[in-house]
Each structure stands twice: as structure tokens, then as C-alpha cells.
């Protein structure tokens, strides 16, 4: 680590948390100017995160040197709260910044009512701050707190339109979330009771395969599965998305759910790593396959654009679960999983933004009646298609690289002699086809011969941001090596 980095990195980490919080507080305190604060804040946070990542990468290539822990207030663990930055959290911070910035820009056009603006921006900025803190937290209890911050602001955003459907969806989302949080908290409590510390790194050094750890692992994993909408605990996702505003859906599917998954991954890579058994891997993998099939089938059934996309999230998260048994064979596969999650988040967010544009133009998102608008808005359809291609895992997109690496890992397990590995390979390969089928459902009406009607006018932000983000998702393939190298800067991980 160069001296400059040594000096700057901790400050930059703490600064990021502070910046996100300040922006959120400012927007809350000054609702009239919330959108201006929000825009400036979004730009500032993004710039900050990018700067941070530059510092971080510069500190490499030794993972131990790059990963940084910051003791808040100078209180070291086990007593104090630790902020923790490593390759994994850095990657997700950057992802959050990119999706966050795009969402913010999109919201400039999407949320234009003055009163709504006052409500939307503070909530959204809190959500963002919560996510940033979530990724930086190195302490189990603090993770719970940040999870709650994220959940509550997300629920509020889902309920944002104030209609019965939206509120009902929000209530369901909230109840499920609290259930998940409590379950998670119970696990934290058990761990704390066993080891007397909350810091993840300290826990990691102390855990062994004991019954308490097992119980804690079960509680925390199940709770997070609920929050991450992993099959079969996904049912809150579609209704919540169905009525949420488009940028909220984008963030929800792109970031919030990914945040919960991040926690699962982090826990199983660290604290719970000694507990993992092949049977566990197979169970999770099976759930993943089921999620892939079920989510895709539901996406093929659903009649509304946003429902389709929401179910697609359920399906795509199946890949992440399928990756668990792969990680048991090839521990290095976790980086692939994260890369996949990153690419998925980018693509999914742009699909939701594009869907939002279409919904806005048409006044509804019933697929059956959307043809006219789809035909009249090739740019948005292109964004939808481009991001969709990434979801399918076809070249030249990031999705392809992710799929390639997943498949490579899967075939690696097969070649290593795992029979069940064939199932994982089939799922990874076949999932793309199902994805293609439901994405085709969304895009195909644009090619039907028929009437054109651009519908309601949309602001240029809503026109171009989905396309921009979809392009980013597509070009993420070029960042594959960079992402994987960044992820390699995670100490302790294989």
C-alpha cells in the first residue's frame, strides 16, 4: 500500500458513509429542493465511489493490503463498530453507484409532481445510504440495522403511489421483511451468545461447526432468503413491483434484493464457511433450479410487463443459488456469482426503467394492449431488448461472460466427477432459453404489424436513461476481467 492510499482510504470509506447520510438528511430536511439535492448528491456519491474504487484498486494487488477496516470513532472491535471494505463490497458499491445514478437521472423525468418529489427523493436517498452502509458494515448487528434502513425505505417507496394495491403490496413486503429481519437478528443473537462478539472477522476466526452456529446459520439464511425473494419465498416480489414506481422497481430488483443476497454470500464465505456440507449445497442448488423454472414459467404466464420482469428476477436469482454447490467444489466460483449478480442488477434495472417508460407512455403495462406503444418507441424497446439479451446470457453482453463463467464452473464440477453437476449445467444452460422466451414476449409485439401510438410524451431522461443503462449492462462484459480482479482483492476468500 502506498502511503497516500494508507492515509486516504479509511477516510474515503468513512467519508462515503457520511456523504450518503448527509445527502439523505439534507433531502429530508429540505424537501422543496429534494430533487436538486438528490441529483447533486447522486453525482457526488457516484464520483466518490468511483474515486474510492480507484484508491482501492491502486492499493492492490495484495488483498490484505487493499482491504481496509475503519473503526468508527476510533473504537476497535470487538467493542466498536467496524466499517469494512474489500473487493466484494467495493464491487457492489460501484454497482450501487451506477444503478443509483441511472435511477436518479431517470427519476428526474419520472417523478415530476412537486409533492411527490418531496416524498420520493428523501426516501430514495435513504435507501441508497442504507445500501452503502450495508455493503460497508463489518459488524453483524450493524448489518441488521442497515438491513432495516434499506427495508423500511424500500417499503415506503413501494407504497409511494398510495393506491390500495401499492399499499397492500407494501404491507406484505414489510411484514415479510420484518419476519426476515427478525429471523436474521435471532441468528445474530445466537452467534453473539456463543462467541460474545459481533464483528464478522472476529466471528469468522471463532466459529466452528457447532449446533448453535448451525441454528444461527439456518435462521439467518432463511431470513435473508425471504428478503432476497429466493424461491419459494419469493411471492412478495411481484405484487411489490407491480405497483411500485419504475425507478423503485429498478432499485428493488437491482440493488435491494442483491444486497440481501450479498449478505448470504458474505456469511457463507466467512462465518459459516465451516458449516457447509454437500447436502446443503445440493438443497440450495435444487432450490435454485426450481426458482429458475418456476420464475420463468410465471414470467411466461404473467400478463403485465412489470410482473414479467419481477418474475424474471425470481428466475435469475435461481442462478445465484445454483452457484452454491459449484462453490463447494470450486471455492473460487464465488467471484463468478458476484459478477453475475452485478450484471443482472444492471440489466434488470434497465429493463425496469424501460418498462417504466412504456408504462408511462401507455398509461398501463398490460402486455396485451401495449403493442401500439411498443411499436412507436423503438428506442425503449431496443433498451428492453438489449438488457434482455444480457439477461439471456447471450453475447456480447455482460450476461454472456457471466454465463460463460458459470457454465465453466458447472462443467468443472462435472469434470471433477460430480453427477449432480449435470443438473447444474443443464439449469445454467437451459435457463437462458426460458429467459429468451419471456423476453421475446415483451419485445415481439413491437414487431407485429399494426397501429403505432407513442402515447403520453415522456421526458428525454426516460427515453435515454434505460438505453444508457442497458448499454452499460451490455458492455459490462468488457469489465469482466476488471470485476474479477477487483473481487480477488477480498482477503480470506479463495
Amino acid at each position: 500500500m502506498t502511503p497516500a492510499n494508507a492515509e486516504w482510504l479509511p477516510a474515503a470509506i468513512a467519508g462515503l458513509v457520511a456523504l450518503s447520510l448527509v445527502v439523505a438528511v439534507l433531502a429530508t430536511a429540505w424537501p422543496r429542493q429534494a430533487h436538486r439535492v438528490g441529483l447533486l448528491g447522486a453525482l457526488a456519491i457516484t464520483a466518490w465511489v468511483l474515486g474510492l474504487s480507484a484508491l482501492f484498486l491502486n492499493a492492490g494487488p495484495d488483498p490484505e493490503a487493499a482491504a481496509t477496516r475503519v473503526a468508527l470513532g476510533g473504537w476497535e472491535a470487538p467493542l466498536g463498530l467496524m466499517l469494512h471494505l474489500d473487493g466484494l463490497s467495493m464491487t457492489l458499491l460501484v454497482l450501487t453507484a451506477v444503478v443509483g445514478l441511472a435511477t436518479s437521472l431517470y427519476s428526474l423525468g419520472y417523478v415530476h409532481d412537486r409533492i411527490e418529489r418531496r416524498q420520493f427523493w428523501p426516501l430514495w436517498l435513504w435507501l441508497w445510504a442504507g445500501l452503502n452502509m450495508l455493503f460497508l458494515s463489518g459488524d453483524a448487528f450493524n448489518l441488521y440495522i442497515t438491513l432495516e434502513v434499506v427495508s423500511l425505505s424500500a417499503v415506503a417507496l413501494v407504497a409511494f403511489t398510495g393506491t390500495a394495491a401499492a399499499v397492500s403490496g407494501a404491507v406484505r413486503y414489510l411484514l415479510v421483511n420484518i419476519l426476515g429481519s427478525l429471523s436474521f437478528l435471532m441468528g445474530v443473537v445466537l452467534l453473539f451468545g456463543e462467541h460474545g462478539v459481533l464483528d464478522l472477522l472476529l466471528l469468522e476466526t471463532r466459529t466452528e461447526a457447532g449446533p448453535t452456529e448451525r441454528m444461527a446459520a439456518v435462521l439467518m439464511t432463511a431470513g435473508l432468503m425471504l428478503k432476497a425473494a429466493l424461491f419459494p419465498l419469493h411471492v412478495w416480489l411481484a405484487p411489490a413491483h407491480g405497483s411500485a414506481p419504475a425507478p423503485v422497481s429498478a432499485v428493488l430488483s437491482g440493488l435491494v434484493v442483491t444486497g440481501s443476497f450479498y449478505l448470504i454470500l458474505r456469511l457463507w464465505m466467512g462465518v459459516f464457511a465451516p458449516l457447509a456440507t454437500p447436502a446443503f449445497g445440493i438443497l440450495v442448488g435444487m432450490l435454485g433450479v426450481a426458482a429458475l423454472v418456476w420464475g420463468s414459467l410465471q414470467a411466461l404466464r404473467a400478463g403485465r410487463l412489470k410482473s414479467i420482469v419481477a418474475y424474471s428476477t425470481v428466475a435469475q436469482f435461481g442462478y445465484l443459488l445454483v452457484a452454491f454447490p459449484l462453490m463447494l467444489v470450486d471455492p473460487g466460483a464465488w467471484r463468478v456469482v458476484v459478477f453475475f449478480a452485478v450484471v443482472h442488477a444492471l440489466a434488470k434495472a434497465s429493463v425496469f426503467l424501460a418498462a417504466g417508460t412504456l408504462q408511462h407512455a401507455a398509461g398501463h403495462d398490460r402486455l396485451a394492449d401495449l403493442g401500439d406503444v411498443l411499436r412507436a418507441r423503438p428506442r425503449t424497446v431496443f433498451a428492453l431488448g438489449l438488457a434482455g439479451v444480457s439477461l439471456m446470457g447471450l453475447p456480447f453482453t455482460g450476461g454472456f461472460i457471466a454465463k460463460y463463467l458459470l457454465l465453466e464452473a458447472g462443467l468443472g464440477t462435472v469434470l471433477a466427477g460430480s453427477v449432480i453437476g449435470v443438473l447444474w449445467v443443464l439449469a445454467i444452460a437451459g435457463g437462458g432459453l426460458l429467459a429468451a422466451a419471456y423476453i421475446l414476449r415483451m419485445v415481439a409485439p413491437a414487431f407485429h404489424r399494426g397501429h403505432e401510438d407513442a402515447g403520453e410524451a415522456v421526458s428525454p431522461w426516460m427515453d435515454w436513461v434505460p438505453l444508457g443503462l442497458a448499454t452499460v449492462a451490455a458492455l459490462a462484459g468488457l469489465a469482466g476481467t476488471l470485476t474479477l480482479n477487483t473481487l480477488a482483492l477480498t482477503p480470506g476468500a479463495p
Partner: protein
Amino acid sequence: MNGLAETLAHTLAPGLLYPTAGAILFALGLYGLIRRHHLVLRILALNIMGSGVFMVLLGVAARGEGPPDPVAQALTLTGIVVAVSATAFALALVVHLTRLTGHAVMLPGPPDDDAPVEDISRGEHHADGGPAASDEDRPS
């Protein structure tokens, strides 16, 4: 009998009694969350679950020799704060939902195809209710 009494005494010791009670509360709360349709009851159930968690935490804090772990108590306090705010938020949502639909129950879930669609970006607000709750979700 002696054994039983000893076991009881051991069980009643805060180190084990609290966690056990906490676990039972957690399970009860979960049951309530599942079985009750009225949303206020559900929120109460969640609170019961939360109480369970905190009892476990406190029990954990009391375990071992010496004075209870202050960290655990601090955590409990923080947890209660979070739980209170979440509950308040939840209740606010329920109140809003009740105003909209006349019932403190959730709308049915995913049959999304005919659900009403709102688009805030068009600036149209319809505060007057969505479809009535289905039988399935009506309080029993």
C-alpha cells in the same frame, strides 16, 4: 423427583429460561403472523417475535458469571428502537390501507393481470379504493 427439581431449577435459571421462552415467543409470533388475517394482529405477532428475540438476547447477556454483558443490553435497546419504528411505520401503512379499502387486510397477491395500475409519473391520483379483498384474505 430430586432430578426433576434440579432440572427445573436449572431451567429456570435466567441463562436458559430466557432463551427458551424467547424461542417459544418467536414460534408463537410466527404462528400468529401466519394464521391471523387482520393486519394489526399480524403486526402484533411480529412484535411478539421481536420480544422473543430480545429475550434470547437478554438471556445470552445474563449467561456466565459476573455482571450481565452491557453490550447485549445496548443491542436490545437498539433493537427495540428499530422494532418500534418499524411497527409505527407498519401501523401507518395499515391505517392507510384501511382507509383505502375499508378493511385491515391485504389484497390478494399475484393474480396481477387485472390489478389496477397507477402511474405516478402521469400525475393521476386515485385515492378511492381498489378492488375489495378476496374471501381468502378476509379476517376469519
